[in-house]
């Protein structure tokens, strides 16, 4: 099955009129002269969730870094004019660093912390806690609150639940769910969880150095497609989620 030749949505210009918040065209990234991403083309509509999947080493994190302008790249990355991007990284080191949630937030803003905390379901009392005493789920929600402090309209997540237990995953994704419904925010997230992809995303971008699939998540139920994207099909995990409200859409 030749997935590369599958018809994919034609990317219109990233502009308010087109409804796209991001358009990426022929993106390429080389690190130490090794091609990490080649000819990556996709677009993201405003107010939707794009799940980025692919096996380890597929270039998912590199793509996010390129979108943030943290890496040199070839091709075009066009954000719509009014976009403000919030970012939650995969790696966040808090071990034995004496810093409170309030001080962490003060890196970005002088006040107004209660509203983003309430948006992620945390109380103001968490502000005086040290980051390194928070649970995995609390930490991720604090990071989301940090990301929305300056009211972005796009959120980029690099495996937002990689370091939390399965029960806390629901909290994190329900938080994202509520944010999207209430604020119309656009979400781009990297995940390995097929459940998250099918329940929470509007569009899937499957990467393996180049785009292997770009389209609706319902297609991921096709075994041939999974095999084509992930080889053995082991690139995605399915976790059982206990409490689920409706998906992001």
């Amino acid at each position, binding site marked *: 099955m030749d997935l590369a030749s599958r018809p994919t949505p034609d990317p219109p210009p990233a502009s308010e009129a087109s409804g796209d918040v991001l358009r990426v065209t022929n993106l390429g990234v080389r690190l130490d002269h090794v091609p990490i991403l080649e000819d990556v083309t996709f677009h993201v509509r405003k107010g939707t969730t794009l799940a980025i999947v692919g096996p380890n080493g597929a270039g998912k994190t590199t793509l996010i*870094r390129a979108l*943030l302008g*943290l890496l040199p790249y070839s091709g075009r990355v066009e954000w719509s004019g009014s976009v403000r*991007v919030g*970012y939650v*990284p995969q*790696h*966040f*080191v*808090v071990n*034995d*660093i*004496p*810093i*409170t949630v309030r*001080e*962490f937030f*003060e*890196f*970005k803003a002088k006040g107004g912390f209660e509203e983003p905390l309430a948006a992620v379901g945390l109380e103001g009392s968490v502000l005086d806690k*040290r*980051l390194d005493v928070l649970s995995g789920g609390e930490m991720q929600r604090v990071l989301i609150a940090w990301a929305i402090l300056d009211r972005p309209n796009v959120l980029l997540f690099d495996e937002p639940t990689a370091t939390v237990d399965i029960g806390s995953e629901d909290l994190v994704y329900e938080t994202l769910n509520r944010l999207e419904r209430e604020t119309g925010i656009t979400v781009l997230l990297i995940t390995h969880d097929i459940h998250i992809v099918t329940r929470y995303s509007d569009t899937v971008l499957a990467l393996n150095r180049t785009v292997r699939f770009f389209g609706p998540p319902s297609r991921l139920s096709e075994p041939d497609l999974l095999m084509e994207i992930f080889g053995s099909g082991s690139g995605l995990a399915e976790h059982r989620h206990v409490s689920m409200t409706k998906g992001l859409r």
Partner: protein
Amino acid sequence: MIEAVAYSLVAGVFVGFAAGYVGSLMVLKRMALVGDALSHVALPGLALGILFNFNPFFGAFAFLFSAAVLTWYIERTTRIFPESIIGVLFVTALAVGILLTPEVDLLEALFGDITTVSLLDALLAVGISVPVVLVSRFVYRRVVLSILSEELARSTGVNVALANFVYLFLVTVVVAVGIKIVGTVLVGALVVVPAAAMKNVSRSLSAYALRSGVTGVACAGSGILLAAYLGLPAGPLVVTVGTVIFAGALLVRWLAS
């Protein structure tokens, strides 16, 4: 003698605060051993100052600054761990420094001598320590954010490479100015020990930074006074006071947990 001790005390208080404050970042970056080894690089510069009759501070600073730039550049452009470079480069500097330094001045260069601290040395210490603390405050949050997540820092517009460079520069300045009091062997401890101690008993970043500075003052002040009273070199006493405070802080942390 009394004048020299008074000058030492003034210099020690200011350098102690600056060293503790800047050191708090070094400990967070897990570069405590780097800070200690870095100080050894000053010795050849110090020796050149003694040999060619110019203020050894400038020789020490030139060597420290070169070493810091080299470390920063290699860390940024290669995948070699800085520890490997430091392990080779800095002990070599210590060896060369010992060979170059006239024997009569070697003890002072290695362990400091508060009896030779002049008014100019004290003024230099004050005039350098104050701006070091002010600039540290400016880069402090940027460096901490880059420790938490370099990508997050960069995504919010922090120039991580520049912040790290400024911070390393501040460390070299503090080390260079502290050498007169505690010597090249132990000045690194004045940077590292106060912060290592206060990390055990601080619940917030602001408290940690301030307490590290104040502990630096306590170490330097007590060490200098003890040195004057006992007629011993100040360097080892400054470090010994710091170690006692560190042990106390560890005990407090253990009791609190």
